[in-house]
């Protein structure tokens, strides 16, 4: 469990970093290293050069705007989790973050790194998809914005070109008065999700869902927006039969094949349970927001 020989570069500017990537097809960006370095130790990843972006100017910090939270590439999970301004405009972030691995890993791992790794069982990609966020990719030919739903293409695969660096992720704030919730089922605390579900919803003054966003991780080769369920639930009072219908419509979204310890049936059962609980919890919070 020692990595094979690799080079190391620590560019000071984003342009320099991009040019190293462009000039070496086997160079890989190093941010928090919480996935990449173990993979190298297993020799599952054998990059020619690590391009360490921690010294690149202007890749740190969080900017909270009125509509969007910008998370720069070197921002650690833990910073995002504990940021008070983020919590005010999007309390879902902290709720999701508690499930991301463990504190020592969150201290080092980066939000954008997790997005770029694109593990479909991970929480961060799901959060970006749920909120309808995006990332900014910068490459030799300039910057482009990629919507979350276009970014995650398949298992560990994103729309990022290999000579691009994701400089920031953009997470929308929650709509005023919206309820939110996230939960997941894992074998142990901090493990990747067998299934996880997040929800953001708004209620109208008659208690009907005027807008429902629902997404899941762990069930397919990318995080999944459960659009059929969203459509079914929108306009309803989110009662038991509405939830039944939403759950029934979501089963087909489970496309992960059977694993030794997680059958397709079990995953569907867990997904259904989570949808019921998470939507109900989000609705309760939305109601509380209204009465508050």
């Amino acid at each position: 469990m020692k990595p094979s020989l690799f080079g190391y570069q620590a560019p000071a500017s984003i342009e320099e970093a991009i040019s190293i990537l462009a000039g070496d097809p086997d160079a890989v960006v190093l941010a928090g290293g919480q996935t990449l370095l173990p993979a190298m130790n297993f020799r599952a990843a054998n990059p020619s050069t690590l391009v360490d972006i921690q010294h690149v100017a202007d890749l740190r910090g969080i900017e909270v705007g009125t509509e969007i939270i910008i998370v720069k590439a070197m921002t650690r999970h833990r910073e995002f989790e504990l940021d008070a301004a983020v919590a005010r405009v999007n309390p879902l972030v902290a709720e999701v973050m508690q499930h991301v691995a463990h504190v020592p890993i969150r201290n080092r791992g980066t939000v954008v790194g997790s997005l770029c790794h694109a593990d479909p069982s991970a929480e961060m990609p799901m959060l970006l998809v749920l909120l309808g966020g995006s990332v900014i990719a910068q490459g030799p030919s300039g910057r482009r914005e990629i919507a979350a739903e276009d970014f995650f293409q398949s298992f560990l695969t994103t729309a990022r070109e290999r000579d691009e660096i994701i400089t920031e992720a953009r997470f929308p704030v929650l709509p005023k008065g919206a309820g939110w919730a996230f939960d997941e089922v894992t074998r142990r605390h901090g493990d990747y999700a067998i299934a996880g579900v997040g929800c953001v919803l708004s209620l109208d003054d008659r208690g009907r869902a005027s807008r429902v966003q629902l997404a899941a991780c762990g069930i397919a080769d990318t995080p999944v927006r459960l659009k059929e369920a969203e459509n079914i639930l929108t306009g309803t009072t989110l009662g038991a039969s509405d939830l039944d219908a939403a759950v029934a419509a979501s089963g087909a979204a489970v496309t992960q094949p059977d694993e030794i310890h997680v059958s397709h049936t079990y995953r569907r059962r867990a997904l259904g349970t989570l949808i019921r609980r998470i939507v109900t919890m989000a609705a309760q919070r939305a109601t509380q927001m209204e009465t508050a």
Partner: protein
Amino acid sequence: MSTRQFGARVERNIDPKLLRGEGAFVDDIPLPDALHVAFLRSPHARARIVSIDASAAKRHPGVAAIYTSDDIGTLDVEMPLLIPHPSMKNPKTQRPLARGDVHYVGQTVAMVVAVDRYTAEDAAALIEVEYEPLPLEMDLAKALTDDAPLVHADVPNNLAAHFIQTSGNPDDAFARAEHVTKITVQVDRSTAAPMECRAVAARWDAVSGELTVWDGTQAPISVRGGLASVFELDEDKVRVIAPDVGGGFGQKVLLFYPDELLVPMAAMRLGRPVKYIEDRRENFLGSSQERTQIHTIELAALRTGEVIGLRDFFLHDTGAFIPYGIAVAQVASTSIAGPYRIPNIFVEFKAVYTPTVQVTPYRGCGRPQACFALERAMDQLAEELGLDRFEIRRRNLIAEKEFPYEREGLLFADGLKVTLDSGQYGKALAMAAAELGAESFAAEQAKARAEGRYLGLGLACYVEGTGLGPYEGGHVKIHPITGKVYVNTGLSTQGQGHDTVFAQIVADQLGVSPQDVIVVEGDTKAFDWGVATFASRAAVVSGNAIHKTALTVRKKVIEAAANMLDVDPDQIELRDSAAWVKGSNRFAPLAAIATASNPLRYAFNKAAQAATQFARASKHDGPPLADGQAPGLEATDYYSPSQSTWAYGVHGAIIEVDPGLCTVKIRKYVCIHDCGNMINPMIVEGQVLGGIAQGIGGALYEHLDYQADGNLANASLMDFLVPYATEIPNVSILHLETPTPLNPLGVKGVGEAGCIAVGAVVASGVEDALRPFGALKFHQVPLSPNMISYALETAGY
């Protein structure tokens, strides 16, 4: 010291060092100019090696040597069969490096020695091996069939051992039975996953002809004997040191692992220190594992619930080799009747070769499997007879007046008849019921169900034969300069706290504080004779040996002090590191007594002046040392147990199952246990809690996922689910102390106790919790969410 140290919650002597990161593990031993080892391991579970080409690897810069089976001379033989037994027909052990065939994924094929581990791994990747893959069978039952592919060509049906033991008259009992219950249960393959993986470093001193080996082993003296034999050296020319070792749990008691022979060999051949630090992946692939057994157990009962007979047949997975003999299966088979009377027993097992790494004892050593089989059967019997689960156990537990309780015909791992020596089994059960709130639980359960929450009560009893012989020794010496006491024994510690409990034993006898007792173990230069750390035996066997020795030294101290202080020996008391004349302020420090007990020529310090030939205190009739006298305050003695001493306990839990997510939460865990007199209750609790945590791993999480091709799919700590602290509930541990009559200290072992019953408790509790969904059965651990989902699905939910 007037307070008794034995039984006190003395803080562990070793903790400050370990907590400050000042421990010295094998990899911390400074070895200038050391070379480093990496192994090339088989990627196939069964294959024939067609060719090995190491030429490119040998040319790789930084490589010192590459060894295959052709290059290791007399070491190219099968390694020892450690515990022979007539039930094995053609026992197979491994060669250090594969020759001809490979028998499991991870088997060592070649060893690379290089300037650093990185280079060694790079070079290992350059060795080209051509394999011809062979068919294989991973399933235990299928492996026994006539047409199954063989792990060893000359072992038909993959049958490694077949053994039957009978106690009483089981056929008659089953003929008389009013009710018979029968179940098949399975405990799956697991591994100890010690925090520190295995490690070996060696240095050969060509001038003195001495070989020094640092080995994270549980058996340094046995390893020394083996190395001396293999390299044809006198034992005194081989020094094996087990320095700080980060957990063993049985995995580190096997000898030999290939590296334990090949690293010293390379050091001797290359004339430089050589080091091998096993990494986590190698620990999963190449270090011993345990657990898979499939039991079909029947209980013959009367309608009262009295169990009059037991029949058990089980398959035991021994992996590709059987170096430790049938120990695991034998312990399982002799623990099968647990703490219950059950006078008539038939137990039969077949040990089966599978193309996986060898199976040797892992904390529990067959007992968790036996406990799971018996306790799940007891639950089923209770249900079928309409009896409460506590009540059926109460009716069968051996009563205090029945001890010693013998199981004629069952021979335990020490080759002696199973004889349960002492205990208060019934009281332990009653305490568990009280601590769990068993009486009011039905109401609590009903209330929770009304709220849509599913609570269940789980219960299991266990026994554990501990403290096996043959023997251990103790050496106690009072240091003449400081008055501190040095203690040695032959076995070694992996973090259990030996240094503290042995110190407590000695402190009481010599009137010193435990902090002034320095225990040095795990170094063959410190103590010459002994066996190893296994079978929950250190406190029992070494503890009693050290106790006996301390008594001898105490006698010497008192005699010498009486002489110095000019009183009768019965006027002397030992406290505060000194000998006092009772009821007076006259005393002599232990250092002074030790110095005076050593007749000196040269007065190197003030105290020593009193021991020289012209000093008043050394006036003797005759020579300074009388016939039969030895200098100093020192003694060595040994303890050899007459038989194993049997600890026991009752575990129970309140468990919540979430049927929607199929998850299990342990709401409350109760452990009543009895290991006889406790030397240090805090250390006992640490042992028990650690065992329970490991047991929870085995009950819910830890499962080695072997694929049909023999590859291990989860050879990492990311995928092999060792429970975190977040998965371990608070445990309430209640002690019972029934001194064993078998040894002077009245102690029984406790190292393995915690893990034994947990699987049975959890399965029992999950079944109870899910009763509203029907009679769902959980007969396999680890019990996964998937199994719960499947059971619910089968029941129509």
